[in-house]
């Protein structure tokens, strides 16, 4: 080590605490600077798309969300929406609002977990732990409403599985109040911290044009200044009937991405509060879909915490799909974006976990 002009190869992950889950990188270092990165995927490949071909419409729901632990609910909703699109079914209004509450709680929980991730990478674990307490409250809420903490099985083709338990609105509002208070504290402690600013401002910059060319969606694209959000651009469920804004950044650096995510949490809280007021417990929550699906295609696009996610189902009439295609949100973030930033900017080995955390990828999402 130390020979001039000689590059050193280092393996980063999948066991490294700075690695975003079960994924590895092979890094070529020139001194401290990373000059090349090669992603090593496949540690969590389970073949979900193929497995879904051997299971009926309702059985595949339990597979549809298992490749993103942090943010499973939009994936489950997307699969349910795609099946409903295939059946050309219209679900009850209550189901739409419950799904919105579910998706937004999942987004908040995911961003809370991300705070812990970036807090750990920048050495600010103290505020990160407060964020985890808020996430814990959300997981407890899911455990109370849906029966499980992480994988919820709430949305199924045809609607949602559970009616409103007693005191649903009160408890949900209580959780939201706790989350909002905690997020404000975390935001103050994290975003105004000079160490955090020094580590993130100006690091990992992307322009809107570059982000679009690299196939980026979600908060990373919005941080570059483009207000693109599927919930606004092509509203699904009842997102066109609630008021919310799409937060955007301007510089497109790591700090802006963090700012956008914090603002998104507040917007999600706003959406949940509005959706709660529109629930009607006397109306049904679910419709019965036929067992056999017609021949055709079903497509659903949803906005997850990491960007646009797509489910495409092809049916040749029957109880099982002919083919299911899932569009990963983290694929561009972990491959092209990381390589592009490393080539165009001076990223050191100490910056690398912060860069990965600011992109907030979900490694199993890449493997599926």
């Amino acid at each position, binding site marked *: 080590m130390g020979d001039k002009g000689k590059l050193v190869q280092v393996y980063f992950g999948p066991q490294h605490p700075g690695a975003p889950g079960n994924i590895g990188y092979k890094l070529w270092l020139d001194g401290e600077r990373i000059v090349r990165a090669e992603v090593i995927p496949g540690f969590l490949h389970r073949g979900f798309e193929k497995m879904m071909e051997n299971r009926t419409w309702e059985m595949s729901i339990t597979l549809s969300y298992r490749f993103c632990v942090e943010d499973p609910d939009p994936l489950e909703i997307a699969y349910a929406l795609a099946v409903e699109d295939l059946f050309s079914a219209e679900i009850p209004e209550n189901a739409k609002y419950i799904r919105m509450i579910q998706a937004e709680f999942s987004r908040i929980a995911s961003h809370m977990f991300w705070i812990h991730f970036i807090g750990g990478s920048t050495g600010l674990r103290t505020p990160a732990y407060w964020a985890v307490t808020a996430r814990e409250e959300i997981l407890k809420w899911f455990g109370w409403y849906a029966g499980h903490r992480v994988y919820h099985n709430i949305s199924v083709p045809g609607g949602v599985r559970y009616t409103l338990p007693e005191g649903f609105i009160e408890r949900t509002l209580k959780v939201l109040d706790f989350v909002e208070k905690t997020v404000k504290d975390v935001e103050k402690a994290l975003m105004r911290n000079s160490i955090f600013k020094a580590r993130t401002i100006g690091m990992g910059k992307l322009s809107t044009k570059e982000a679009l060319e690299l196939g980026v969606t979600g908060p990373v694209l919005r941080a570059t200044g483009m207000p693109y959000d599927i919930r606004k651009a092509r509203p699904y469920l009842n997102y066109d009937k609630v008021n919310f804004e799409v937060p955007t950044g301007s510089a497109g650096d790591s700090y802006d991405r963090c700012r956008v995510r914090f603002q998104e949490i507040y917007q999600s809280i706003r959406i949940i509060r509005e959706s709660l007021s529109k629930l009607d417990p006397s109306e*049904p929550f679910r419709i019965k879909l036929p067992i056999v699906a017609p021949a055709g295609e079903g497509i659903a696009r949803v906005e997850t915490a990491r960007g646009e996610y797509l489910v495409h189902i092809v049916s040749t009439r029957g109880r099982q799909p002919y083919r299911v295609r899932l569009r990963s949100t983290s694929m561009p973030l972990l491959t092209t974006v990381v390589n592009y930033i490393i080539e165009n900017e001076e990223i050191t080995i100490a910056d690398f976990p912060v860069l990965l955390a600011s992109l907030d990828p979900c490694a199993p999402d890449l493997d599926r």
Partner: protein
Amino acid sequence: MVLSTIKNAIKYMVKKPYTRQVPRKDDKYRSENLRGAHILYMDRCTGCSMCQRVCPAACIDMVVVEGDWPRNHRKRFPRIDHSKCTFCALCVEYCPFNALSMTDATGFELFTTDKSRTLKMPQDLKPIGKETLTKQKLLSSYAPSYALKKFVETLEGSRKVSPNG
């Protein structure tokens, strides 16, 4: 400045700890909808294998249990492998005879160091906690007319199965 972090940290320092020790025998996590260990009502089960067919994890298989079962002449009952089960409750939802339901026994209550003990024979699927998730609860999300129709069908279905088949 790091003052904002320190100021907030002091605020949180005086609060009581949020974390709790797990596993603990008292103050277990409970909820009304918890999907935990299964209950099998052997007197209601007809051995139709619907639970086996809808299980996405393929953790249910049908085994023979000797005895006098007037509604189950082939004496076939579901055996559930808890090490594979995802506790999705599809078996509860699709059981035509209301024979399966779930309890709030979950997590640390089901932990074992002996892997062979995760395979639950039909006789072992007894209530080890409070019954939380039943078919009726899952049917209640449908429109009342459909839920009632389905429930009546279940009842009629169970009556139709006479001791002579």
